[in-house]
């Protein structure tokens, strides 16, 4: 499990302080804390709960409601396979399955070496390039079983 370092705790406290007085601060705080830690473990949620004076149950409810939040650490690289309509009809699903088989990872899971996290996503708005894949911030067009592994080789 990825540890929350002292530096991260300080950043978390800073985020809480900056948003404390605003109404509706919880979701922006969670977004920023997740970008610091990579995930939102219970201890971070408890810290936010005390800092914002919001019950832990409410925070847990919000974290588990939105797909953007995660309570498990993510891999170094995030693979997102688009399964929007256009990508789906052009073969997004077999592409997803081939990654699952190659790395032995389920959708939503992370490889044991923390190299990749695999997700399927709803439309990323690149329908003209279907089927599309996003690795970290890079979008790849017209992916196929033939070129996926070559692309992923570039992410160590």
């Amino acid at each position, binding site marked *: 499990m990825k540890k929350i370092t002292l530096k991260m705790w300080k950043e978390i406290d800073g985020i809480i302080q900056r948003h404390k007085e605003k*109404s509706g601060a919880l979701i922006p705080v969670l*977004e920023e804390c997740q970008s610091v830690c990579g995930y939102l473990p219970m201890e971070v949620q408890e810290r936010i709960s005390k800092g914002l004076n919001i019950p832990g149950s409410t925070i847990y409810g*919000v974290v588990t409601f939105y797909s953007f939040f995660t309570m498990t650490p993510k891999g170094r690289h995030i693979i997102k396979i688009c399964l929007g*309509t*256009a990508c789906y009809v052009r073969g997004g699903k077999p592409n997803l399955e081939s990654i699952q088989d190659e790395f032995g990872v389920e959708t939503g899971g992370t490889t044991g070496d923390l190299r990749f996290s695999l997700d399927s996503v709803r*439309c990323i708005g690149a329908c003209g390039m279907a089927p599309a894949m996003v690795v970290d911030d890079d979008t790849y067009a017209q992916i196929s079983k033939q070129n996926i592994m070559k692309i992923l080789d570039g992410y160590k």
Partner: protein
Amino acid sequence: MGRINRDQLNEIKSRGENIIDIRLGKAPVDGEKHLMVGGGTACHASRSEPVRDAIRGEIEKKGLSKICKVIETGNDAFSTLAPVMVVYPEGVYYVHLTPDDVDDIVSQHLIDGKLVERLLYKDPVNNKPIPRMMDIPYFSNQTLITLRNLTLIDPENIDDAIARDAYQGAAKALMDITAEEIINQVKVSGIRGRGGAGFPTGMKWGFAARAEGDIKYVLCNADEGDPGAFMDRSVLEADPHAVLEGMIIAAKAINAHQGYIYCRAEYPLAIKRLKIAIEQARRYGLLGKDILGSGFDFDLEIYQGAGAFVCGEETALMISIEGKRGMPRPRPPFPAHEGLWKKPTVLNNVETLANIPQIILNGGQWYAAIGTEKSKGTKVFALAGKVNNSGLVEVPMGMPLKDIVYKIGGGIPEDKRLKAVQIGGPSGGCIPSDLLDTVTDYEAITCTGAIMGSGGMVIMDEDNCMVDIARFFMEFCQEESCGKCTPCREGTKRMLEIVTKITEGRGEIDDIATLEELAEMVKDSSLCGLGQTAPNPVLSTIRHFRDEYEAHIKDKRCPAGVCKALIIYIIDEEKCPGCGKCKRVCPVEAITGEKKVPHTIDPEKCIRCGVCIASCKFDAIGVV
């Protein structure tokens, strides 16, 4: 320049008009040139940034920087051709660019004045190059209002936008006319909410304006979640000031002073450009206190969504901004009376707001002259799927679907047969090929069992199984159901189970009736729009493609050859030369055969993954 007043706004506009004239083709061709490189998300994904940098470098190297300007736009409308570039004033359109093409463009086009033919757009039918963008049928058949600045401005430069009339509508709304007159003009225009429900915008504003309350809010719904729809993203990336201006006008109409743009986190480029636009507008005093010296205050913030489809529903969106689980609540009270923080609130979609400045500037009558009796103006569709030209298309309301698919979309690839047009996203339905004369009009589309929705338009051909498509959308709605109300939570789950069962060959003949009964129940009794429309894909496919359901259930056959449990792969002995390629690529060793002898597939071992079909050069593997 710091805060500006109206005269200074007009000064910036007239100064910028010379620049815009070049891009509108009004300037002499041998003068200054503007190279507008597409830079929306789809362009960036197709590596447009290296092209942009390479062309800047090459122009610099050849000493042309004085007369040739490279500008990045947010244009990715014709996304299959990205990266693209338009050279003005000629209006020449170059497609599929790579950094290696830059030398030719600079030396041939910019220096010698000759077109680089190999980089021009080619007609998909006769393969003839069409040099000018506006001669390409994809563009020439469109009517651009929402997307009017797509290839004409740098979205990160407010002066470009001002030169194209940005904030003129706001200036008029704030200083020349009353709030009642604004609402009246919007009513006269007949514009209806472009997010999906199609509620008249002017009426919505009227309710919020009359609502009692000292604090009111204007919200922009940029939580574009329908798979297949990306017009809102494109507007935000290409012309963010149009949306800000629309919000200022809405604020004046209902007397609000604070706004929020709720944008999904999956759109980082849109958020980045919005932030830049907001900052620039604030510097000019177009947001904040005393806008343009009118005495009116309005400011806004971006609120980043956290990934929940249901937050596109208005009450859920407001609850999400309040920092809670974004679950819809019953209406009434309607947001116009009790919205965000229980204050009167107007929520409009990006595309709706982007039309408002033009309506105020040109008058409601001007807008109402476009379209059909009950659906006015234009609508942007995101055309995708099995169609030659995919991308955003903006057409006047009332255009027949067949014109969108064939005239603008360029028809179906590989001469396949069009089976259906899926319109309206997961809340929509499939319109079969024999109803292609249906026009884009809210009521006409609803008659077919689909809905206008936010404008996703996915073309399906004979290789798409309609039961599988229904299952796909059902799965989407089921996963995105927030779980608050029972009909949606349980009903969509049961419907998904039945449709899945049918695609797996375990369907029974009563299943169709059960599906229809469940669908009506979910439609009638769900709390919000998500549940009320979730059964549409199933209902519309049963209505128009009942034979496909029956083939799956009675004959245990998938006519389109998609549903894996119901198909087998078979090698055509007459076509197979026994090259061995399929045998090598098969992941489960299901293919056997000696060299130079036709091979065979063991249906027991075959997992129908399709790798062999993709690898066969002889088209010898069929699906039955």
